[in-house]
Structures are given as structure tokens and as C-alpha cells.
């Protein structure tokens, strides 16, 4: 509660801030990287997310850009001459990267255009303002006692793992990323060269520019074999771990991507005694536990041995043993 009730100021766990678009680039056919800048963003850690919405001003009824005349060219985003349809509710995006300089904070959001909100986002230009509520949710735990980590990410589930790779490397944990998409055109990462399809995933390389920046070797997979390992990322992960059994013991696995993909990772980890954390995705309205939209079925010691957990406040990060998969 507020300071005037308890005498103690409430820790600002999350805030509603205005942010300005400072970079916006198309990464691949349907994915974009949006970088916004804001002030005094509360402490955040990898795995947490923000709720993003058009800047709203209830006094004027409609969302307005704070600097409508300052939009500049030089972005790869869609330059729509007509006003895009604005989403009504905010949308949740994991933080793909975060840099601080004094009280200024730059936040990367990597998104895929799939509907009204992301179509609107694709029209954002440099200098435009958007609202951010965050940081929200629980972060990935970083287990200092375990010196080895694997990241397994699929498609638009890759972004939180990028920031996590940085944090793990900074914590002195040797990290390898397994990242995949259905096809090369949908790989939301920059990459070095164009490796011919290969059948096994024994060796990870500094093949992804973004993961290389975090000193994290990666194995890139595509389902159709158009780039890197041919097969889905779960197969790449299993193949890599099996081929490197000695270094894989005592590893922690972090995964984010389509639910079936994460289930594959979680089942394999459970069978092989890997500690594993999954980053769940649910559509949500509020992001702070009030709308009750974003339920994830988890094990419970109470009656019925299951319960609904809210993805926004208890998650989005869950230990794999908690989840009851559909």
C-alpha cells in the first residue's frame, strides 16, 4: 500500500512508464526488434515481461503519440500512411534485452506480427511514444551452484533467452543456446554465414550474432533444414546433450517457445534429471493478477492435486515439474 498507510514507501516492483522508440528493425520475414528508451524503469531480470500499449491519455479519450511530428525515417518498420487500428488492451512481451545508462533504460522487444496489436507495433516510428507497464512476473532463477546451462528456444520464444544468456555468462555459467524455427525466413536472429544443413548437433558455434555477443555458442535448427541442423530444436537439444554427456551433467535447462516444444524439453529433462525452467505464454489483460485470464495448470498439494496458477504473477517462469501439460 502507499506510504501514507504503513509509514513505509511501497517498493516500486513495477511501474507504468512512457517510453520512446529509439530503434525499430525488421529481423526476418515476420519478426521485428523494437528498442524503446525510458526513465527510472524498476529493477528487472531476465524472464520478466512488460505490458505494452499505445500511449493513453484519458483526458483526451484517444491514444496519442507524445511526439507525433518527430517520427523519422530510417527504420525498417512498416510506414503506414493511414492510422493503424489501435489495440484496446495492452500486450505482454518478454524483455529481450535491457541496458541502463544512469536513469535511462533501453529495452529490446522482439515480436512477430500476428494480429491487431503487432500490426500496430510494426508501424511505430522513431520518436513515437508507447506505454510500458513493468517489469512484471517472476524471473529465471540463476543457479550459481550449477556451472552449466542450456537454453532451448523456439521462434518468438527466443528473446527472453537472449537476455538470460547475458546474465548467465556474467554469472560465470557456461551456456549453450539451442535455437530453432520452422524455416530460415522465420529465424528471428542475425547469424554468421549460411551453414549447409548438418545432421548432428554435436558442436555449438558462435553462429548467432546476438548470442555470440553474450559469448554463448549456439546451435541453430530449422524444421525444414533450410538453415543449420535439420529438425526441430528439441531434437537438436537431445542430440547435443547425448553427444556431450560428460559436460551435460549438473546442467540447468531454460526453455521458451511453443508449448509443445517446451513440453518435449521438459519431458526429456525430467527423464534425465536436469533441472529445467519453462517460460509459459498466455494471453492476458492486466499483467498484475487482477483479470485472472492467464491460468496455467500446475500441480498442487491441495485437494484434487492441481490448481490454476496465474502466468502473470506466479509465472511466466515455472519449474518443469510444476506444470501439468495439456
Amino acid at each position, binding site marked *: 500500500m502507499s506510504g501514507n498507510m504503513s509509514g513505509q514507501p511501497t517498493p516500486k516492483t513495477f511501474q507504468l512508464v512512457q517510453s520512446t522508440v529509439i530503434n525499430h528493425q525488421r529481423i526476418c520475414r515476420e519478426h521485428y526488434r523494437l528498442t524503446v528508451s525510458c526513465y527510472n524503469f524498476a529493477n528487472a531480470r531476465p524472464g520478466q515481461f512488460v505490458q505494452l500499449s499505445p500511449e493513453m491519455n484519458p483526458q483526451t479519450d484517444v491514444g496519442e503519440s507524445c511526439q507525433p511530428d518527430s517520427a523519422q525515417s530510417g527504420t525498417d518498420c512498416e510506414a503506414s500512411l493511414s492510422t493503424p487500428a489501435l489495440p484496446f488492451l495492452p500486450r505482454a512481451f518478454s524483455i529481450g534485452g535491457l541496458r541502463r545508462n544512469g536513469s535511462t533504460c533501453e529495452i529490446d522487444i522482439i515480436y512477430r506480427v500476428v494480429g491487431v496489436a503487432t500490426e500496430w507495433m510494426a508501424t511505430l516510428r522513431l520518436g513515437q511514444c508507447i506505454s510500458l507497464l513493468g517489469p512484471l512476473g517472476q524471473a529465471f532463477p540463476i543457479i550459481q551452484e550449477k556451472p552449466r546451462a542450456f537454453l532451448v528456444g523456439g521462434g518468438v520464444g527466443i528473446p527472453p533467452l537472449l537476455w538470460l544468456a547475458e546474465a548467465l555468462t556474467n554469472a560465470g555459467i557456461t551456456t549453450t543456446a539451442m535455437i530453432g524455427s520452422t524455416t530460415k525466413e522465420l529465424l528471428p536472429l542475425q547469424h554468421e554465414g549460411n551453414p549447409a544443413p548438418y545432421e548432428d548437433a554435436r558442436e555449438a558455434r558462435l553462429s548467432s550474432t546476438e548470442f555470440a555477443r553474450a559469448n554463448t555458442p549456439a546451435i541453430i535448427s530449422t524444421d525444414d533444414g533450410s538453415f543449420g541442423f535439420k529438425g526441430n530444436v528439441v531434437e537438436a537439444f537431445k542430440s547435443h546433450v547425448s553427444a556431450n554427456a560428460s559436460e551435460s551433467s549438473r546442467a540447468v535447462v531454460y526453455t521458451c517457445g511453443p508449448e509443445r516444444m517446451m513440453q518435449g524439453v521438459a519431458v526429456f529433462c525430467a527423464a534425465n534429471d536436469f533441472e529445467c525452467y519453462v517460460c509459459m505464454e498466455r494471453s492476458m489483460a492486466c499483467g498484475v493478477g487482477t483479470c485472472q485470464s492467464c*491460468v496455467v495448470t500446475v500441480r498442487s498439494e491441495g485437494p484434487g492435486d492441481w490448481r490454476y496458477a496465474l502466468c502473470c504473477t506466479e509465472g511466466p517462469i515455472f519449474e518443469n515439474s510444476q506444470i501439468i501439460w495439456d
Partner: protein
Amino acid sequence: MSDATDSCLPDLRVNLGGLALSNPVITASGTSGYGPEYAPLFDINLLGGFVTKSVTLHERPGNPQPRTCETASGMLNAIGLANVGLERFCVEKIPFLSQLSIPTIVNVAGHEVSDYVKVCERLDEIECIAAVELNVSCPNVSDGLEWGTDAKRLASLVREVRQVVSRCKLIVKLTPNTGDIVELARGAIDGGAEILSLINTLRGMAIHVDSRKPMLANVTGGLSGPAIKPVALCMVHQVYQGCTRHNGIPIIAMGGIRTWRDAIEFHLAGATAVAVGTSLFVDPRSPLALIDGMRAYLKRHGLMSIQDVIGKVQLPEK
């Protein structure tokens, strides 16, 4: 701020059926949890009152997901009354609510008369609770019909609850999913309602065109947000003109309120208080902007009090 400045500010205080509110803006049930959720963003005590999420006799997990989806200027929800249940509410949620300096209103839902009676009887004993609000949009277990869609059935439910509620004010939240909401208002008042709140969500549906499946696991849900505001405004107008204007029962209006303009419209139509719901998801601090906007409106029109607006719609002469 000096007293001189204060005396220039228009007065937003309202008397909501005996509840003294410092301003008419409250939260709508189910959109701000049990209180602490939005505390990092703003001081709830700046509102006129706080309304909790529904409380039922027993804990309820609620419906499977997807539970919500966005629609044009609004959203559908089928949460299924997920809540911690009466016992946990008393143990876990009351300590926070008891610290609030504004009136706390607890929304109550049930599937049998005895559910409502047991919950309200217990809540009436808890001093920090100023009022109970009956959610009568739930189906009755015996016949599956909503309590709130028939005036006689509604009156009998309210009458039973009235027997056990003596300290708290009794609010009945009316459903718009009915033929004649004025009849329902009369039924609720006959049963002993001291305050009416309207409207609850409108029943709606959305279908995913690629999967051909309903967007909600529950198939249908309740529509809320700015999309329903004209419907809500019309119903507040009808209930005020057709019923409460004559008997002095105050109305809490809700349904798509997002800006001070919306709030003033509802006041003009006859509402004593206004509740912000779905718009909290869009901008959790919007109720505060709304209070500022209402005050500026009164000042601009040279009005000293919000009382000068309530029910003052200029209707054409018949």
C-alpha cells in the same frame, strides 16, 4: 494546499445510500483483485471506494483457459468466478482491506440462496466492510437460470440476504441480459436493496476463423469495455427515470467508463457513483485522471458540486 485553494475546488463528495464517498469514482468488481495488486501504481485511498473481486462460499478454480479475448473496443471474459472462497478471503485479504481509509465493498456470488446468505452473514460481521454487492448474474444450480433475470426471483433472493445483513449496506448488481431492467431494479428494491449497481457484462461470443473454435473455452462470455457504454448509459437512464428518481435509491453506474466524459454522462443520466472496470487493464491509473477531469469539468461549468450534475440530463419535453 491552502484552505483558500481547497474552497475553490468543486466538491466531489457523494452520499451513496449512507456511504460517504470523498469522490464518486470506485472500482468495478473483478478488475482490481482484492486491493494490493495495483498498490505499486497508485494509492487506492484516492478513490471514492473499493470493490473486491467476487467472493463465493467455497474456493473456485474458475474456467479453463482461454478465459478472455479482446473484441472491438472491449473484451470478453469467462473467468468462472475464480476466487479464494470466504474463509481464505477473511484470513488473507481482510488484513489489507482493513487498512483502507475508503469504504470497502465486497462483491458476493453464489449458486444457491444459502450460498449468498452464508457469505453475507459472515461479511456483515467484519467491521471494515461497508457494503456487500450481490452478483446475481450466476446461474441457480436448481434450474440453471440466472438469479438476476427475473424480478420475482431476484426479489426473493435479496429478501433472504436482507435478513442477515444489518450493518453493511446492501447493493444489488443488475444484469443487462434481460428484457426489462427497470422491472429488475424494482424487484431488487422490493427485496431490500439500498443501492443498485448496473450494468454487469453483456453476454457475447467470438469465433476464431482459422480454427473455427470459439475464442473462449467457455464458448460464451461477458462483454465489457467501451463497446458496451451506450447500452449501460441507456439502462442507467431507464432505471433512474423509471424507478430510482422517485424513491431516492442511488445508482452505481458501470459499463465502459474510461474518461471523465463517460463519468459525467453517467452522472447526468442519474448515477450517484461511477465504477471503472475494464479500463483499469488499459491504464490502471485512469480512475485518478477521471477524478481530475470531473473536477475540471465542474469548474469550467461554474458548478460547486457533483450533486449539481446528477440526474440533470436535459431531456426533450414530451
